[in-house]
C-alpha cells in the first residue's frame, strides 16, 4: 500500500517529461523544444561561465533583498501591529503603495537609485516586503491579550513584553509571510531582470528568447524553478528551527 502510493506519485512526476516528449514527437505544440534538445542545452550551459554568473547573481539578489525585507518588515510590522498611533501614521501611506505591483516600480528605481543592481534588488525587496509586513502585523495583532497580561503581571516591561511575548507569539504568522515573500521575491526578481536586463536568470531566459535559443529558455525556467524550490525549503527549515515549540504541539 505505502509502496504502491509512492509508485503512483513517482509515476505522476515522471509523466511530465514523458508527456513533454510525446507532445514534441507528435508535433502538437509547434516550436516546443524537445527534452533532448533542452538536456543538451543544459549541458552546454553547464560549461559556460555566463550561466553560473547568472545563477550567482540571481541568488545573491534574492537572498540579500529577502533578508533586508525581513529585517525591515518584521520590526515595522510589530510596531504597526501593537501601536495604534504609529499604525495610523504609517500604514495608510504604505497601503497606498501596496497595490502597485513591484515590477511597475522598475522605471522609477532605475532613474532614482544609483546602480542598476540596486534597482533590481529594490524590486525584489518590494516583492518580499509587503507579505512579510502584513503577516507580521496580523501576527502582532493576533497575540492573545492574556499573554501580554501574564507577562506584565510577572513584572515584564513593555520592551520585555515585546521581546518575550509579542514577537514569539507572532512568529508563526511571520513565517507564513516569509514563505509567501520568498515566492514573490523570485517572481519580481525574474520580472525585473527581464525588463531591466543585464544579467541574471530572468535576463538569460528572456535573451534566449530574443536570440532564439529556445531550449535555453527552458533551461532557464528549470533553473529558476529549482532555485525557487530550494529557497522556499530554506525558509521553511529556518521557520521550523525557530519555532521548535510548535512542532511539539502537533506531535
Amino acid at each position, binding site marked *: 500500500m505505502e509502496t504502491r502510493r509512492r509508485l503512483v506519485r513517482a509515476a505522476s512526476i515522471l509523466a511530465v517529461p514523458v508527456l513533454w516528449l510525446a507532445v514534441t514527437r507528435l508535433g502538437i505544440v509547434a516550436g516546443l523544444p524537445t527534452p533532448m534538445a533542452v538536456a543538451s542545452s543544459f549541458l552546454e550551459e553547464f560549461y559556460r561561465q555566463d550561466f553560473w554568473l547568472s545563477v550567482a547573481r540571481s541568488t545573491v539578489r534574492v537572498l540579500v533583498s529577502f533578508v533586508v525585507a525581513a529585517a525591515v518588515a518584521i520590526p515595522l510590522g510589530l510596531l504597526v501591529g501593537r501601536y495604534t498611533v504609529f499604525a495610523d501614521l504609517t500604514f495608510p501611506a504604505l497601503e497606498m503603495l501596496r497595490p502597485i505591483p513591484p515590477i511597475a516600480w522598475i522605471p522609477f528605481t532605475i532613474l532614482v537609485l544609483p546602480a542598476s543592481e540596486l534597482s533590481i534588488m529594490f524590486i525584489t525587496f518590494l516583492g518580499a516586503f509587503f507579505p512579510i509586513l502584513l503577516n507580521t502585523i496580523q501576527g502582532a495583532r493576533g497575540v*492573545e491579550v*492574556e*499573554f501580554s*497580561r*501574564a*507577562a*506584565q*503581571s*510577572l*513584572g*515584564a*516591561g513593555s520592551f*520585555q513584553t515585546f521581546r*518575550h*511575548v509579542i514577537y*514569539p*507569539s507572532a*512568529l508563526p504568522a511571520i513565517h507564513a509571510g516569509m514563505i509567501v515573500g520568498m515566492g514573490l521575491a523570485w517572481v519580481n526578481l525574474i520580472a525585473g531582470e527581464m525588463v531591466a536586463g543585464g544579467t541574471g536568470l530572468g535576463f538569460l531566459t528572456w535573451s534566449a528568447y530574443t536570440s532564439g535559443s529556445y531550449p535555453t529558455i527552458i533551461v532557464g525556467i528549470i533553473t529558476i524553478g529549482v532555485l525557487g524550490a530550494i529557497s522556499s525549503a530554506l525558509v521553511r527549515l529556518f521557520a521550523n528551527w525557530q*519555532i*521548535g*515549540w*510548535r512542532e*511539539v*504541539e502537533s*506531535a
Partner: protein
Amino acid sequence: MSNQSQTTREQTAEGEPTPGATGAIDIEDLTKVYDPEGERVVAVDDMDLHIGAEEFVALLGPSGCGKSTVMNCIAGYLEPTEGEVIVDGNRVSGPDPKRGVVFQDNRLFPWKTVQENVEFGPQMNDGVEAGRARNILDEMGLDGFEDAYPSGLSGGMQQRAELARLLANDPDIMLMDEPFSALDALTKEIMQKKLIEVWERDNRTVLFITHDVEEAILLADRVVVMTARPGQVKDVIDVDLDRPRDPEVVTTDRFTELRERALSVIREEAQRALEQEEGQA
C-alpha cells in the same frame, strides 16, 4: 481597614493573619463600563468589597455578571470607569508582580519550556533569586518536565506549571479566574489540594473565581456571590468549616446548608440573567 480584615479572619475560624501581613484589597465604588462612547455595557456597577490580607475569597456569579472584569481591575489590566481598587493602601494603576494572575485558559507561554516559563518572572524582577524556580518545579511535581514545552504536558500538569510560574514571583495576592474549570474531576481535586497547601503555608491573599459552588465552599474563607450584570455584591457567605477540609466534608450537613444557600442565590440571579438575555433577543 485592617480592622475589618481581622474580623473576617476570625469568622473563618483560621489563625490570625501574620503581623504586618500584606495583600489587603479594597474595591471602592467600582464601576466599569465597556465602550462608553458606543454601545455601553455596564459590566460592574458601583461595587464595594474588602478582601483582607491572607484571606481566601471565592467569587461566584452567573455567566457574564462581571467577575472577570472585577479581577482585571484588581490585576491592573483595566482602568475602572469610576471608583478604584486599593491594595495595601496604594491605588492600583497597572499590573504588578505582587499581584499574580492565573487565567482560565492556560496561559503558559507555549514558546518557552516549563522551566523558562517558571523562571520568567524572577528574570523580569531580578531581585528574586532564580534558584527558587527550580525548587518550585520540584514541589509542583514537575521534575523531569523542565525542558518540555507546555504543549507536551497534560492539562493538569499545565495548570501546575502555571501555578509554579506564579509562585516563583512570590506574589502577595493570587488572582485566579476559573483556574480549574477545564480539568477533569480528579485532576481538579488534586489541584485544589495543592492550592490550599500553598496558600496555608505562604499566607497569600487569594481571589478565586469559579462557577462551581462546591469548589467555592470547599476552598474559601468567604464566598462572595455577585448579582447578574451589572455586577454588584449580592451576598457574602462566611464558610465556617474547619480546615484542613477533606473531600468528605461535602457530605456534612453544614456544607449542604452552605451549598443550598449559595445555590439558591445563584439560581435566582442566573434566572434574572437569562430573562435579560431573552428580553434582548
